[in-house]
Structures are given as C-alpha cells and as structure tokens.
C-alpha cells in the first residue's frame, strides 16, 4: 500500500518528466510493435512468394492424345504430396484464358487456324512450391519434351523482403535499448525523491527491499502503463498500417491477413519486460542501506 504510494511520488513532485517519459515510451513501444510486426510477418510473406513458382511441362508434339493421361499421372506421381496445382493447357484452353484480358491477342491467335497448335504447344502448367529436383524428375518422364521453370521469378523481391525484415529487427532492438535507457535516466532523475524516502523507511525499520522497492516499482508501472497505451493505439492503427504498407508495394498486400501483425497484448508484455529490465539494471540510490 505504502510501497505504491511511495512509488507514485514522482507523479506528484515531477509530473512533467513522468508524463514525457510515459509518452516517449508509448510512442517507442508503438514503433517497436510495427517493426516487430514486419520482422515476423515478412518471412511469412516471403515463404508465400517462394511457394508461388510456375513450371511449364511441354509435351512431345508427336505424342498421341491418348498418352496425355499417362503423362499426367506420372506428373502427379512425381509431385507426391507437395501442394502444386496442375492444369492442362492447349491452344483452345489458352484462347479461353486469354479471351477476357487480351481479346485482340485472342483474335490473332484464332486467326491462325490450325497453326495455333504450333504457337501454343500443349503443356501442363504447374503452380506451387517447385524445386530443381522436381524439375529434373519431370524432365525424365517419357512423353515430356521439355520443362520451362521460373526458379528465380521473385528473387529480387525476396531479397528486398529479407532486407526489410532484417532492418526491422535491428530497429526493434535499438528501440528496446532506447526504452531501457529512458527508464534508467528517469530513475536517475527521480533518485533524489526516492533516496529521501528510502532513508526514512530504513531508519524506521523497513527492510532493504521495502526501502528500495518503490524506486524500482516506479519504472515498471510507467513502462506497463506505456505498454497499455501502445497496445490500444496499435489495435486502432494496425489496419491503417497494413493499408499503408500495401499501398507501398503489392507484395505487402498480405500483411495483416496472410501474415498477421503483432497481437496488441504483446506490447503490454513488452512494456512490462522493459520495465523489469530497468528494474534489474536500475542504479542504487546514493544512500546505501545496510
């Protein structure tokens, strides 16, 4: 009871520095939340892009249409349980697919008559997580003429994403350090207030723990309060954040849906944790209590 009253004394005696520290910690925690979200969500988005590869398995033009089914079965067999969609494409299917988006192109192809089979050879279109090994196995299937594989389709973007994730981790760590620094500096600022009461409490028979506890409780309460504020703000701002990121690049579009952002209560936890670190690192006040 008295510990809490003593811990909250700086709010009465130096309210401005307490409020400023609370606001600073709140904003830092909010930023930390956004960077932590990026750091955890981007690898998820990255995996999504990595799993979005296409391979075209071209069939021997001389093969009988009847052998198509056996080729398809062989492809399925090679895929095993991996999540890859298989779609048969011939000139007619190609025309149907192109019709809606590019009607002019569709007309031109249709005008080719029987030659259209030559322009769009029969093939199976595979989409999903495809590796080089799988491609080698596909090549070995009898009746397959060649395989075109987009191994490095998203490579530059994947590298961008991992750079941003890495940067986010660095910034997150820097922010956590800054928060601990703010709390320790605040502790120094408040040490005069606390050492006075510490002396009185220990003279009257308080244990060293009772004497020192208020000074240490103060940053924990402050950081937890900031965590609460930041959590609430984060809850409100995260849709906006996801929208802004999606506007920045379509590759961030899955942020908040496919790859979830940080859960707001974690910010409260982070605040508590930062407070606890400051608790452990906080310097003793000048008075040493025996």
């Amino acid at each position, binding site marked *: *009871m*008295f510990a809490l*009253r*003593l811990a909250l*004394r700086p709010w*009465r*005696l130096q309210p401005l520095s307490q409020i400023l520290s609370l606001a600073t910690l709140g904003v830092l925690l909010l930023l930390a939340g956004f960077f932590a979200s990026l750091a955890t969500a981007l690898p998820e988005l990255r995996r999504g892009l990595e799993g979005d590869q296409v391979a075209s398995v071209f069939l021997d033009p001389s093969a009988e249409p009847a052998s198509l089914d056996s080729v398809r079965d062989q492809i399925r067999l090679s895929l095993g349980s991996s999540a890859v969609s298989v779609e048969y494409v011939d000139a007619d299917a190609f025309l149907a697919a192109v019709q809606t988006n590019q009607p002019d192109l569709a007309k031109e192809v249709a005008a080719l008559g029987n030659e259209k089979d030559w322009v769009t050879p029969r093939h199976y279109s595979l989409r999903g997580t495809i590796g080089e090994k799988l491609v080698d196995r596909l090549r070995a299937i009898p009746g397959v003429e060649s395989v075109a594989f987009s191994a490095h389709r998203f490579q530059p973007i994947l590298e961008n994403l991992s750079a941003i994730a890495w940067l986010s981790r660095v910034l997150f760590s820097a922010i956590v350090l800054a928060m601990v620094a703010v709390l320790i500096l605040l502790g120094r600022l408040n040490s005069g207030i606390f050492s*006075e*009461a510490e*002396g*009185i*409490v*220990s*003279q*009257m*028979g*308080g*244990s*060293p723990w*009772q004497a020192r506890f208020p000074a240490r409780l103060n940053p924990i309460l402050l950081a937890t309060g900031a965590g609460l504020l930041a959590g609430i703000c984060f809850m409100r701002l995260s849709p906006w954040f996801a929208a802004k990121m999606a506007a920045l690049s379509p590759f961030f579009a899955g942020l908040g849906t496919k790859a979830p952002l940080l859960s707001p209560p974690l910010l409260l936890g982070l605040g508590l944790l930062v407070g606890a670190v400051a608790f452990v690192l906080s310097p003793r006040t000048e008075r040493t209590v*025996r």
Partner: protein
Amino acid sequence: MIQLQALSKGYTERKKVLDHISLELKKGEFLYVLGGTGAGKSTLLRLLATEEEDFGGQLSLFGYDLARASGSTLQAIRRSIGYVPQNVRLIPDFTVFENVALGVSLAGSRVARAEVRGKIYELLDRLQLMNLRDASASRLSGGEAQRVAIARALARGPELLIADEPTGAQDFQNTWNVMDLLHRANISGTTLVLATHDRDIVRKLRKRCAILSHGKVMIEEALCSL
C-alpha cells in the same frame, strides 16, 4: 538496554565530536542529553538511532553490539525505536496521517487497522494536529511538522524513544503537551533519551541527565540539578 563504551565519533580526522563516551541506560529510564550548541547531542542521538555507520568504541542496543549486528538484527532494532530527528524528516507530499501511519506500519505491529487509526487520531488530537490530519506535510509550520514527527515516533509504541529537541519549535502550551505525552510513555515502560536546550523542562521534570561538552560527558547526575 543501551550501553556505550568508549564511544567516539568524528566527521573529520582532526576533531572528534564525541570522544570516548561511556554510558549505560536501563530499560524504562529517562535520560536528558544536555549541552551547548554543537556539543554533539544530535550526533549521539543519531548514533543511538542507528543512523551513523562508522564510529569508534562499542555501542550496544537491546543487548546487540551494533558494529556486528546483521542486517536483520539491525532491522529488528530499528523497529523497536521511535526517533524524532532534529530536522523532523517527514515525507513532504504525504499527509500528516499518512506520515504517522507509515511509521506504524514499518514498526511491524500486528494490531488491527481500525485500532491503529484510533490510536493515531488520539495522538493527533493530544498534539493539536487533528484538524491538520489530511493536510500535506509540506505545508506545515515548523512546530506542526515537529509534532507530527513526535506523533509518528509515539504511535509506533517503541521500546526506546529518542527525541532530539522535540520542543525546540513549540510554544509553551505545546511544549507541555509534548512533555506530558513523553512522560506518560516513559511511565508505561518506554526508555527515553531526550536532547534539549530547555532548562525549564529539566527543572520541572527532574530526571537523570548527561551534559556534553567538547565531546565528553562533563557532568552526569541521577537527578539533574541545573
């Protein structure tokens, strides 16, 4: 209860404020510590209140040698002491009541809350502080703050009461209110050490006294004859 043997204390190398003082005080005794300003009265009382760490000679309280006492022993000793420092030392943004209640709670008594409250109110009433009980300690006058410090020490029900010029800032009426309370506490068993400049008190309430001068106990009398 209190035993000093060749107790010395100096703040600088050259000058000793207390120089080989020996004294013994039994449970329930009443001792005036007298002497001119700067004689070392407050220094002696701070030592008794375990506020000073390094000193020469031997000081034992409640049978424990202070120089060798462990942290928990020291804490137990401090819980049994009520100390009214010369500079009162209240927590300025606590109310009068809270300051007194903090002292009681740190003494570790197991008395019920309502009972503690009643006891504190009674003391505040006797010290003419009742109308100030919810006032912040920072806005008290010097005399009022001093009486709050006295209430805080007495409310703890201490075995040893150390009061450093507790009437130094009081008017006539309050001086005798305070002395009446201290005397009552002494009669009911509290050992009392009182530093004062007020000869009037010493003459009217005659008790044992030790007069300090130049770091020594110049005169020690079982019944003070100032």
